């Protein structure tokens, strides 16, 4: 899609030896439009175009490529590099049980992801336990119990009433039953909800999670960077999980989040079942954004 459009626009460079500044401009204009349509954040698009322009003009044209192909290659390379070149593993260090905290906006996919992560960890030889501290959403804790059950995973069930009490009791239960990972599913919250953000920060302070993961909806648009930044500032984040990538969203939010926060994407969600979790491949996301 973008690559095809670029190829058409860059035909103006045919027969030239260098990537010409004037001929590059319509291509960059096209690229800007395409990236915005792909939901890449406005500011991130600006920065991306600037670096593409700099690289495309600054590089020696390779003998094997036309200037047009050169620009396309720069776009692809810049995009993949920005999306985080290497795959970052989930690192569980410190005392057991390792607490993994899942946070994010309402409906992003946290509860479903908790089961997916539990399933993934168990296949890697861990013994995870799931617990929900969502005391707000109707049947939230019931949902967590059901997804845990369908994935054949241990889940904490108790009489505790507040998020802190539930997490405390879950941690004790995990320790007692010999689980080495405690996956804490939290309530969806708005980053502009001061009270709920304070609650998340307090949970993080109290339980010192080994890893805090932000579940981001890949259908999201321009505002997504605002929420992830707020969570990173208030709660502290170690990584991102991109959900709902089985749709046809271009997923530009991935580029926005990664370039604005510098956080690694650890996994992508590709469906509603507990097996629908894949490792993150930046090159696949790049070609998805570039269509």
């Amino acid at each position, binding site marked *: 899609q973008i690559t095809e459009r670029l190829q058409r626009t860059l035909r103006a460079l045919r027969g030239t030896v260098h990537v010409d500044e004037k001929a590059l401009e319509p291509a960059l204009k096209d690229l*800007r*439009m395409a990236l*915005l*349509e*792909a*939901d890449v954040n*406005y500011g991130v698009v600006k920065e991306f175009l600037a670096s593409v322009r700099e690289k495309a003009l600054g590089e020696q044209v390779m003998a094997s490529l036309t200037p047009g192909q050169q620009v396309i290659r720069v776009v692809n390379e810049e995009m993949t590099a920005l999306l985080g070149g290497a795959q970052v593993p989930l690192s569980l260090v410190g005392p057991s049980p390792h607490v993994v905290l899942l946070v994010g*906006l*309402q*409906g*992003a*996919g946290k509860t479903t992801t908790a089961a997916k992560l539990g399933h993934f960890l168990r296949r890697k030889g861990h013994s995870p336990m799931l617990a929900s501290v969502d005391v*707000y*959403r*109707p*049947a*939230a804790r*019931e*949902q967590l119990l*059901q*997804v845990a059950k*369908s994935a054949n995973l241990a889940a904490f069930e108790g009489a505790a009433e507040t998020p802190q009490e539930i997490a405390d009791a879950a941690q004790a239960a995990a320790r007692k039953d010999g689980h080495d990972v405690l996956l804490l599913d939290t309530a969806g919250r*708005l*980053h*502009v909800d001061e009270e709920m953000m304070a609650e998340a920060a307090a949970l993080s302070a109290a339980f010192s999670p080994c890893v805090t993961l932000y579940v981001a*909806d890949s*259908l*999201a*648009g*321009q*505002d*997504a960077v*605002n*929420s992830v930044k707020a969570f990173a500032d208030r709660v502290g984040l170690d990584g991102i999980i991109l959900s*709902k990538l*089985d*749709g*046809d*969203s*271009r997923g*530009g*939010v991935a580029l926005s989040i990664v370039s604005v926060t510098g956080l690694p994407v650890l996994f992508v969600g590709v469906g*509603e079942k507990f097996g629908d979790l894949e490792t993150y491949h930046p090159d696949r996301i790049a070609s998805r954004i570039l269509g």
Partner: protein
Amino acid sequence: LLPSEKVDAATLESLEEALISADVGPITAAELVEGLQEAAPTGEETRRLLRESMVRILEAPENGNRAEPEPGRETPWVALLVGVNGSGKTTTTAKLAARFQKHGCSILMGAADTFRAAAVEQLCVWGERLDVPVVAHQSGGDPAAVVYDACAAGSARGADVVLIDTAGRLHTKDNLMAELAKMHRSAGKVIDGAPDEVWLVLDATTGQNGLRQAEDFLTHAGITGLILAKLDGSARGGVALSIAHRLSLPIRYVGTGEGTDDLEPFDPEAFVDGLLG
């Protein structure tokens, strides 16, 4: 910039940036700003003209002014709530029940999400809180059968309103969209002309994919309007403007929180003010 001078390129560019940042989409944003350039307004007229053109787009779709259900109906008024995963359908179903209940209507809800974990339980909690009956089947059952039974129960009881919550589904999944079409037909088998409305619940954080969602749900589920949920966040739901423009679909309500009172009828002027910041 003096208010009575012609608006400059920098101002137009910053307006375009504001629109894009509100998820209006680059093409619609460019069209709106080009329209301004042609009208050649002064600095102080610019924002007003832009506001007016956006409000016009939002007021244009025909079924925007369709009436809400009233108590004392002969047959139940039926609405299906549809949309992609996690957008806010179940909560919105409960909000609509609360709203129409306040208007004096007798309500029945159908828990037609037979797929997701604790989906039926979630709607039943709302039903208990509102004292509204919920028709539900065994998990894993045929959702079209729930639609059928909910409409039949509504008819039998003389309910004024039947609200049916459906499972989240990505519009790209053909089998799930076909299932929705079947649910639509089921309603019509029980009550003539049902469903009266099929509302797409759209998450206000949605980007340009929202237009794809609306197109596909229009084709397969015959949506008659939008409900924009989670507008209490910082996302402004601008893709709904593009949807109104390109598909002539009205925005009927906005969701502004997680409680049953957090639903308001759509106000185009307030919405546009939110988009322009």
